[in-house]
């Protein structure tokens, strides 16, 4: 089941071609661009932002392409502070103007330091200064050892061998370079629909159909800060593209059935572009964590008279979280189960959901607020991570591996398993609160007993879901490739996590573990969940779930694990001292 991803482009074959191409910018672009005042140019930019482009195997608005590209090149949502555009800084149009400037003035940009590269070993190997974070495209392309390293990488890839972390980092760096090059030369701008698929700005047809000159006019108007001309050029560009696309839809496969729905199809496309741009701007998962954070603060302060307030924020956050999911599912066309980013926003959703459910079970108890408090704490951490570490948790919508497409059992099994992670994450939150109570000289036995019960409920949810999810994974595997269980690391670690929790529960029933032992044990069990969730994909990196493999974030995860272990050790020592 090893599917080779061979997207070696010409750069990898002939690295020095990069410079040749970069130095000759597309003919329709000349003078550098300086940006005009935000207010007047917005109408035109709005149209350009929503212009459909084919990229990464799907049709998306230029706005998304701009944001994805900035994210990939700078490993951040924004350019380095000194390079951010002045006029549109912080506005909805910041990304799109940056993208257009790259296209307009690739020459200047290729000397600016904005491509993020953090791997110290890799920098050493390439002979780049180790302390800097950002590098210019030119200096990367001219890095002394780049060609040799790339030759080694492509040989390894041909032989189907695993790349080292340094090589992976350098491979990614070259992809960054390629993307910038493709943008600066216009190759990346596949905005011309033809019967043979979407063509880029550099295709001769782009000139003939007027798409390239119109894009040139857009850049020109933007440079002259001429709002009217920008508006006009943008409208013409959008109109021309729509007309061409309509023609393609009508003639494309020569079927008359398609001809009738051509304009309808176009309307749907426009709606999709609108929807995606709206989603990009709203950033619902960011709003969700802000609301959860407010709720957490209010829960912690615990105003007696405002007891409704944190619950309101929590509910609002949950709604916007739900909305974000629905919107993202509609955009991607699949449930949020295909990569680490998606599970990192799905799990906190589950945590909040379970906190509602368990709180409802104990709604008459006055001390039930500890559940949403623990839940919001976990959810905020998880969502902040998802929102701020794009290099590791990549929010870009990418095409799915064939094996992940259109499969009912796949969706069900991953959603179930990740929901169990959510339940266990909630139990971890509550568990840590209980451990805190054990630190007190006179530990409040009654409260600890109640909280332990809450934690036990969360573990129950987790055990049911993890057992069911692991088994459903077996059913999916059986249905997809006829093998119920094959000791693949991902499924094995799901089983290990389940066995760990079962070990704790059976140890409790056997009388080996008291209340304190159960809490400590459950907190430690979450490390098994973490291994199944993160570790298999990012640390082990073997097995059939290879489509989810990635690197990065290891130090952060290890730091968390160490902190957690330290906390447990401190509490255990203290507990021993007191008893």
């Amino acid at each position: 089941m090893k599917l080779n991803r061979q997207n070696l482009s010409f750069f990898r074959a002939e690295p020095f071609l990069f410079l040749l191409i970069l130095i000759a910018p597309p003919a329709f672009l000349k003078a550098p661009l300086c940006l005009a005042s935000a207010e007047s140019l917005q109408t035109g930019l709005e149209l350009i932002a929503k212009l459909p482009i084919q990229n990464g195997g799907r049709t998306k608005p230029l706005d998304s392409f701009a944001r994805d590209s900035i994210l990939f090149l700078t490993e951040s949502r924004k350019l380095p502070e000194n390079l951010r555009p002045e006029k549109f800084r912080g506005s909805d149009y910041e990304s799109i103007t940056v993208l257009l400037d790259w296209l307009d003035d690739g020459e200047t940009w290729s000397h600016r330091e904005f491509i993020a590269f953090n791997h110290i070993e890799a920098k050493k190997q390439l002979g780049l200064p180790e302390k800097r974070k950002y590098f210019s495209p030119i200096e990367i392309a001219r890095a002394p050892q780049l060609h040799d390293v790339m030759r080694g990488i492509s040989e390894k890839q041909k032989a189907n061998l695993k790349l080292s972390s340094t090589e992976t980092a350098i491979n990614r760096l070259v992809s960054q370079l390629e993307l910038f090059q493709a943008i600066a030369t216009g190759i990346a701008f596949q905005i011309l629909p033809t019967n043979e698929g979407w063509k880029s700005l550099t295709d001769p047809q782009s000139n003939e159909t007027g798409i390239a000159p119109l894009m040139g006019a857009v850049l020109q108007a933007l440079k002259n800060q001429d709002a009217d001309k920008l508006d006009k050029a943008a409208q013409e560009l959008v109109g021309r593209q729509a007309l061409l696309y309509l023609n393609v839809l009508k003639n494309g496969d020569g079927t008359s059935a398609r001809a009738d729905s051509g304009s309808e199809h176009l309307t749907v496309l426009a709606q999709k572009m609108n929807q995606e741009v709206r989603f990009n701007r709203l950033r619902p998962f960011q709003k969700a964590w802000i609301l959860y954070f407010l709720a957490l603060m209010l829960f912690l302060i615990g105003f007696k008279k405002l007891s409704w307030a944190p619950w309101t924020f929590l509910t609002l956050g949950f709604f916007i979280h739900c909305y974000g999911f629905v919107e993202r599912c509609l955009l991607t066309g699949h449930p949020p189960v295909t990569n680490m980013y998606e599970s990192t926003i799905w799990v906190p959703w589950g945590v909040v959901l379970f906190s509602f459910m368990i709180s409802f079970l104990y709604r008459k108890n006055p001390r039930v607020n500890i559940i949403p408090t623990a839940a919001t704490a976990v959810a905020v951490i998880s969502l902040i991570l998802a929102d701020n570490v794009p290099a590791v948790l990549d929010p870009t919508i990418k095409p799915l591996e064939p094996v992940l497409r259109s499969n009912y059992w796949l969706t069900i099994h991953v959603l179930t398993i990740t929901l169990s992670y959510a339940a266990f994450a909630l139990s971890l939150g509550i568990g840590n609160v209980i451990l805190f109570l054990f630190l007190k000289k006179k530990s409040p036995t009654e409260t600890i007993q109640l909280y332990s019960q809450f934690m036990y409920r969360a573990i129950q949810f987790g055990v049911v879901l993890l057992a069911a999810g692991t088994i459903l994974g077996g059913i999916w595997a059986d249905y997809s490739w006829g093998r119920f269980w094959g000791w693949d690391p991902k499924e094995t670690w799901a089983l290990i996590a389940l066995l760990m929790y079962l070990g704790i529960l059976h140890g409790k029933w056997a009388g080996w573990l008291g209340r304190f032992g159960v809490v400590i044990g459950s907190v430690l069990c979450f490390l098994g969940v973490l291994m199944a969730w993160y570790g298999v994909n990012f640390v082990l990196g073997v097995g059939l779930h290879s489509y989810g493999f990635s690197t990065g974030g290891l130090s952060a995860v290890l730091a968390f694990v160490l902190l957690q272990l330290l906390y447990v050790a401190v509490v255990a020592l203290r507990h021993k001292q007191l008893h």
Partner: protein
Amino acid sequence: MISRIYRFCGSLQLAVFVILGLALSLALATFYESAYGTKAVQANVYQTAWFSGLLILLGINIFCVAAQRYPWKKHQTGFVLAHAGILVLLFGSALTRNFGIDGSLALNESETSNIITLDEPQFEIWDRASNRWLLRRNLRQNDIKPGLLLEWGEQGLGLVVQEFIPKAVAERLYVSTEQTHAPAAIQIEITSRATGIRSEQWLLANDPDAGHATMGLAQISFAQGALAKSTSKSKPHDGTDNSLHFLLTPDGTLRYKLSSRLLGQSSGVISTNKSVTTGWRDFEFRVLKSIPHAQESFRYTNASNNVNDDAPSAIRLETTIDRTPVWLGYGDSITARVRGRELLFRYGPRYIALPFAIRLKTFQMGKYPGTDRAMTYTSLVNVLDADKTALQTEFSKTITMNEPLTYRNFTFYQASFQQTEKGYVSILSVNRDPGRIAKYLGSLLIVAGIIIMYTLRFRKN
């Protein structure tokens, strides 16, 4: 005593021990896999007796735990169901493991086959004279170790495994043979002191493929025959080419003819291990070995990268009578003369014949628009059943990712594909699983059991 053992087998303490022991071994196994690859972990952990023993211990423990609590009370419904479910699931897995078939079928477009290969090593000996199998033995990777004797019931005749390399790299070489019609072979070496480059090359006389080589910018070839005037003109060169030609004349002398841009043309007789300056930069060549009658052979060494699961295994055998060494890579066969008989030795995957055949009509790969990334793989196949009692003797079906074809208890899945010069090869995995029903039933019982257990307890609380 027996009752004490029975008590112990059904104790919660044992349960905790088994659960955590299993968790720990599995955890270690995944790290082992990360370091040594999937094949290694399958052979050294999951397929071993001790691992089966651990699972059997789990089964015994669960059985005793449940049995000792009989007669069951109503509130134990969930507990009984969940634990019975695990037993049923383990039973189903045992059925699959012992009676299931998990093979693969690789088909070119418009190729028909009913032979599926299983990923289980087999050793075979075929007697060419009597046209029959002398030996067909299934081996498990763990069984293949030095000292393993393979016999086929003839007095004093057999093969002994001398060496087993789980992940091997094959290296082609030539060895001397008694067959006088076999062509000659030479091994040459080219070195450059300045760049430190050194490479070796085997050349087989007059062979259309193995008779030529390209080393850097130079053309090298080897022929056998009379020294005729015409040979020098047979391959016209404009004199600017870098080339090196060897000729073995019938009297056994090896001659060379060298041309380089720098030094022009030169020629002469060459003996082994004598260095000659080529005139291509500072390269020198020498003949390392010259074999008058050569036959192709392979030597296997350990693959340097241990994670690469694609590297095949290899074994070295010796016959018990004259200790003739035989190297065999996984999937290879070799003919050897033993006691005057021509025997074919084959070491490779076991294969079985299906009662019906599959023909691949076409294979299609859908790509994401505007990219080279695969979106779907689809095989359109014909099922050809010779069985007259079958409802349909021939029908078509598409097999695509996540949509298999099931026919007569065999299920065909789109596993992967290869792209060759001739077109696509579709790789289907073929599977028959007698434990499937038990595994599904067990799963259902486990989940239902846990849910019932928790809801009943909660009401009680």
